[in-house]
C-alpha cells in the first residue's frame, strides 16, 4: 500500500528506494526518518531541531504542498484526530510533537536533552510549558500575520510578547541556557518560537532583552550536541522558505 509518506516523497523527488537507510534498511546505525510537517508550524521546526541535535537523518516533506482534499483523506488514515506533525521510521508511524521529540531523543546519537536531576527536570518542563501554552499563540499570531496576513490586535500581542520575553530574560540572568549550563528541551521549545518572531520581522523586541540576546547568539552557532558537524539552528526555515514551502531535510555527513 502506498501511504502518504511515499506520496510526499514522490512529490519531493525523494523516492530513491536504493538509497541506503530507506524502506527499512539501516544507514550506519540508524534508519532514515521521514517527517510530514509544514515550515510555518512550530512543532515541525522542533522536530527538525531535535533531529539535528541528536544526529538523526530525516527526510522532511511539506504537507502544504499537497492538494488539500487529497491530503485530508490520506492524512486521516495516518492521524485520525488531526495531530501533527507525523513521523515514519521503517514500519513505524507516530504523530504529534510530544511523541516525535521523545522518539528522536531516545533513538538519537547524543545524550538525552532532558536533565537527570528531578528539580532541573521540573524547571525544564515548567519553562517548556510556558513556551508551549503561553508564548506559542503570540509567536504563531505574528508569523501568520506576516505570511498569511491574518488580522488581530497587535498591541495586545506585543504586550504579551514583552511580558514573556522579560520573564525569560530574568530566568537567563545566571545561566548559560534556560535551565542550567546545558542545553535542554526548554531551549529547544523557546528557540522555535523566537525564531518565528524574528522571521516575522520583530527581532527588535528580542534585542531589548540583554540576556535573551546573549542566549540567542549561542543558540544560532551551537554545534549539534551529538558531535556531528552540524548547527541545528541552520535547519530552520527563513521567511522565504516559509513562503515557498521549503522544509529542510536533516543530513548527517560525518559519521
Amino acid at each position, binding site marked *: 500500500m502506498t501511504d502518504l509518506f511515499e506520496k510526499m516523497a514522490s512529490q519531493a523527488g525523494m523516492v530513491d528506494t536504493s538509497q541506503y537507510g530507506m524502506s527499512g534498511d539501516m544507514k550506519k546505525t540508524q534508519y532514515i526518518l521521514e517527517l510530514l510537517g509544514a515550515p510555518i508550524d512550530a512543532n515541525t521546526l522542533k522536530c527538525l531541531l531535535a533531529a539535528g541535535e541528536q544526529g538523526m537523518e530525516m527526510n522532511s516533506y511539506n504537507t502544504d504542498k499537497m492538494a488539500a482534499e487529497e491530503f485530508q483523506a490520506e492524512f486521516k488514515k495516518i492521524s*485520525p*484526530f488531526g*495531530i501533527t506533525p507525523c*513521523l515514519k*521510521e521503517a514500519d*513505524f508511524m*507516530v*504523530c*504529534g*510533537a*510530544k*511523541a*516525535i*521529540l*521523545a*522518539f528522536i531523543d*531516545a*533513538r538519537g546519537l547524543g545524550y538525552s536533552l532532558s536533565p*537527570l*536531576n*528531578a*528539580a532541573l*527536570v*521540573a*524547571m*525544564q*518542563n*515548567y519553562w*517548556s*510549558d*510556558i513556551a508551549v501554552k*503561553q508564548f506559542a499563540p503570540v509567536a504563531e499570531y505574528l508569523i501568520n500575520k506576516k505570511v498569511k496576513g491574518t488580522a488581530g490586535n497587535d498591541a495586545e500581542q506585543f504586550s*504579551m510578547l514583552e*511580558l*514573556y520575553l*522579560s*520573564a525569560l530574560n530574568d530566568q537567563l540572568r545566571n545561566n548559560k541556557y534556560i535551565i542550567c549550563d546545558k542545553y535542554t528541551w526548554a531551549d529547544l521549545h523557546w528557540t522555535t518560537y523566537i525564531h518565528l518572531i524574528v522571521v516575522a520581522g520583530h527581532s527588535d523586541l528580542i534585542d531589548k532583552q540583554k540576556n535573551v540576546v546573549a542566549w540567542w547568539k549561542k543558540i544560532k552557532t551551537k554545534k549539534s550536541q551529538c558531535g556531528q558537524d552540524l548547527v541545528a539552528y541552520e535547519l530552520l526555515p527563513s521567511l522565504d522558505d516559509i513562503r515557498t514551502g521549503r522544509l529542510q531535510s536533516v543530513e548527517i555527513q560525518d559519521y
Partner: protein
Amino acid sequence: MGFFSRKRSNKKQPPKLICKPNDINSFKCILLAAHRNLDLDISWSEASALDSNLSNSLDLEETDSLPIIEDRNITMSRAEALLGYLNIKGGAPAVHPRKARILAQQNYWIELLDDKLEPLLLDIEGNKDAISTILAAVDKQLSIGPFIVSEFTLADIHWLAAYLVIEEKINDCLTPLIHFSAWLKHMQDKIPNYAEKLQPHTA
C-alpha cells in the same frame, strides 16, 4: 517568591502537594506519586495561597497554578513540571519506557488527551459526539492489550486521571466502552486503592 523558586530550609518533611478538587492534572500527580510509593502531604484547595508574582507577571490565573509542590527549598507549579519531578524523586523506578517506539506511543496518547479531549470537556453536552469518538479510540486501543500501549506507561496514569474526573459527567459516552473495565482492574494492580485516594475529591 514565584511559582518556581528556592528558599533555605533544613527540616526533613514529606513534600507538600496542593491539589485542586476534581482536577485532571491534580489527579495525575496523585496517581503517579501513589504508583511510585512517594510519601506526600496532600492537601486540597480551590486557589493557590502562594505569592504569585511570576504568575501575575505571566498573566496567568491563580487557579491555573494548581497543583503545586513544595519540597523543602523548592516550590513548583504546572502539571508538566510536577510530573517530571514526581517521576524521578525517590528510589522507585521511573515510569519511562526504554524503547523509543513505546515512548513515542505513550506520548501520542497523552497528547490526544491533553490537546484534543481536554478542550472538549469545557462543554461536554455540546461536544458529546467528539468526546465519544475519542473515548472509542481509546477503548479500541485497550482491546489490544492490558494497557494503552504495550506496557504500563504514563499514558495510563494520564487517562486514569481523566477517566476519574469525567466518569460521572459522560455516562452516555462511556456506555459502549467495553474494554475500560478490564483496564481499570489492571490499574488497581499498578496503583492500589487509587479510587479511595481520589473519591472524596471527584464531582
